[in-house]
């Protein structure tokens, strides 16, 4: 399937806000509240069984954090990226850990790294970071301990 | 020369002659006889202990060399010629190290555990016939004594596990207790079959019973195998090294032990290995009997043969799981040992 076909298929059931092609891979923007339903649709109907990863990209210029869901289908070897645009100040998105178990840890990681709240997540505890470090992967993160390496 | 030969080949007679000769002199000085007996026994105990400690050091070296041979490496070769002094150096290092007592330990059981393990291990050797008549104390119930005393070490392991105040130690101690208790039974049943065949519980008697007939390993082959397995389990060596399973329980019951106390455990472990092998050699391989060489040499050759087999097994097999360990003992070894006993009894009767 090329990206156009996949896009058409998603569009039959769910609304796609915006879409683009990036090196042959479909990037579809989904409404925030819809993500769990779309993920379930991807898994059950379109046979995208594998969720490769969930992460986020911070765009302070647009005041947006984009959550990226990367799917892969073992049958057709196609990839699809679903994206959600979030407000940087109020980043909250429903969890899809009920659909994909692998989302559990990936959401925890994205949550602590970007300060995104995944509402409905069963165990949104810290995964990798110790207490006291808040969303280090945001572009405006400043840590007083973070000094540049000494010049040799 | 003749005396030396006599001493080597038929140690009992010259020793008793020497003893009565000393008694005569002693009585001439007007001293009570029991005092001399006491001194004699003290000397014997010290001699046996010294021999065993040195022997344990040598076994450690031997084990390491065997493992090196199997693992295509060279093993200890730095301290002394061929690394012979390596284990001595290790022991000295352990003895002079700082003695660490962790917080919140049960100090009494923590301290007493190495001793409880160490002492019975050495006490057992009093009834082992090293050569013809070379028995420190030839008890009538020698084999019973061995079974009874070796059973004591489980208390030490439990005490170590409990006293360390460490969950790994506790699990290790518990595993060890369960393991020793369940493997003792098939072992005792096998020994019982041997006793049936020889008609005595005296260790020297069991050896003597094998002199005119074949060694018991032939009629009691199944028994010998069961004894090796159970004995291997009793000394907590791979594949039955669950109490100190490194990858699961860090070091099991000796997780918290260091320095001298650890050295005690270590020496006791290898002495136990020697003990099991020696008992196997005595019960099944004809003890000290053998042509040409002096009896004591034969005794050690046979013992080391068994040790080599146990080492070979240790360095080849993975560890067994705890429930399988119990299952193996109760479901396979025990019925087999019982069968062995019954068949032996029936054959002897008819």
């Amino acid at each position: 399937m090329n990206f156009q076909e996949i896009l058409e298929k998603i569009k039959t059931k769910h609304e796609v806000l915006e879409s683009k092609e990036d090196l042959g891979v479909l990037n579809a923007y989904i409404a925030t509240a819809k993500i769990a339903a779309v993920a379930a649709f991807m898994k059950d109907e379109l046979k995208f069984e594998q969720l490769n990863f969930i992460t986020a990209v911070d765009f302070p210029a647009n005041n947006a954090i984009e959550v990226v869901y990367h799917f892969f289908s073992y049958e057709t070897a196609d990839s699809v990226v679903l994206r959600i645009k979030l407000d940087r100040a109020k980043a909250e998105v429903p969890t899809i850990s009920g659909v994909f178990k692998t989302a559990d840890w990936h959401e925890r990681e994205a949550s602590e790294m970007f300060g995104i709240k995944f509402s409905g997540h069963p165990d949104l505890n810290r995964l990798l970071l110790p207490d006291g470090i808040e969303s280090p992967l945001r572009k405006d993160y400043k840590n007083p301990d973070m000094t540049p390496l000494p010049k040799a | 020369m003749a005396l030396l030969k006599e001493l080597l080949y038929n140690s009992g007679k010259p020793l008793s002659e020497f003893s009565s000769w000393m008694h005569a002199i002693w009585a001439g000085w007007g001293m009570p006889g029991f005092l001399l007996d006491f001194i004699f026994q003290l000397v014997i105990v010290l001699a046996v202990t010294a021999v065993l400690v040195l022997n344990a050091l040598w076994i450690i070296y031997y084990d390491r060399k065997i493992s090196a041979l199997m693992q295509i490496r060279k093993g200890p070769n730095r301290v002394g010629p061929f690394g012979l002094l390596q284990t001595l150096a290790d022991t000295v290092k352990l003895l002079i190290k700082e003695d660490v007592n962790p917080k919140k330990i049960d100090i009494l059981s923590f301290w007493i555990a190495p001793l409880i393990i160490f002492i019975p291990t050495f006490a057992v050797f009093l009834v082992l016939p090293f050569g013809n008549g070379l028995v420190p104390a030839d008890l009538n119930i020698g084999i019973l004594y061995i079974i009874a005393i070796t059973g004591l070490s489980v208390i030490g392991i439990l005490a170590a596990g409990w006293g360390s105040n460490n969950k790994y130690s506790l699990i290790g101690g518990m595993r060890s207790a369960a393991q020793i208790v369940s493997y003792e039974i098939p072992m005792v049943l096998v020994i019982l079959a041997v006793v049936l065949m020889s008609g005595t519980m005296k260790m020297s008697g069991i050896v003597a019973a094998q002199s005119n007939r074949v060694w018991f390993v032939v009629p009691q082959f199944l028994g010998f195998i069961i004894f090796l397995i159970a004995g291997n389990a009793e000394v907590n060596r791979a594949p039955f090294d669950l109490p100190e399973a490194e990858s699961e329980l860090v070091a099991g019951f000796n997780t918290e032990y260091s320095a001298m106390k650890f050295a005690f455990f270590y020496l006791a472990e290898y002495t136990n290995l020697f003990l099991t092998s020696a008992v196997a050699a005595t019960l099944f391989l004809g003890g000290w009997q053998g042509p040409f060489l002096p009896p004591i040499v034969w005794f050690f050759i046979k013992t080391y043969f068994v040790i080599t087999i146990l080492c070979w097994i240790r360095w080849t097999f993975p560890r067994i799981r705890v429930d399988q360990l119990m299952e193996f003992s109760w479901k396979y070894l025990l019925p087999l040992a019982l069968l062995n006993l019954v068949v032996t009894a029936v054959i002897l009767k008819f």
Partner: protein
Amino acid sequence: MIKYLFDLVKGIVSLFEGLGVTLKHCFRRPITLQYPEKRPDISLRFRGRLVMPVDPATGDNRCTACMLCVRACPNHSIDVEKLIGEDGKPKPKVSKYIYNLGSCMFCNLCVESCAFAAIIMSDEYETAVQNKASLIMDLAAEKYKLSGKKAPWWQSKFKQEEGA
């Protein structure tokens, strides 16, 4: 029942197979390398610590203090100070080449970036030192003499590799 017995026999056979493997290895040559006395034969391209060897042709290092290696280093392990001549102007020569072994990750990017092959990853692999301060070293002052099989390779500016 037959399957049970079959499995039992198979299990026992598998035990003896394992014993056979270890027994077979008893008669193979040990692979031990008695380390401090015998050294491993390390390859030509091995990346040990960074050195700035003295070129025997000129008796000095080849560095021109162009800072390419400083820019190529991923974790700022290299710092270069240019030689200031008597007239107060910087010369294309290095006065101090400071290398932090502690943060170096032996990626070879500095050597690859160098246009003059002034630096090379040596075959020194025993780089432990007593204190952290001695991890930071001045390579220009060290006047390292490259020897062994790396020397001709470096002489040819990494152009030609000898046989092996």
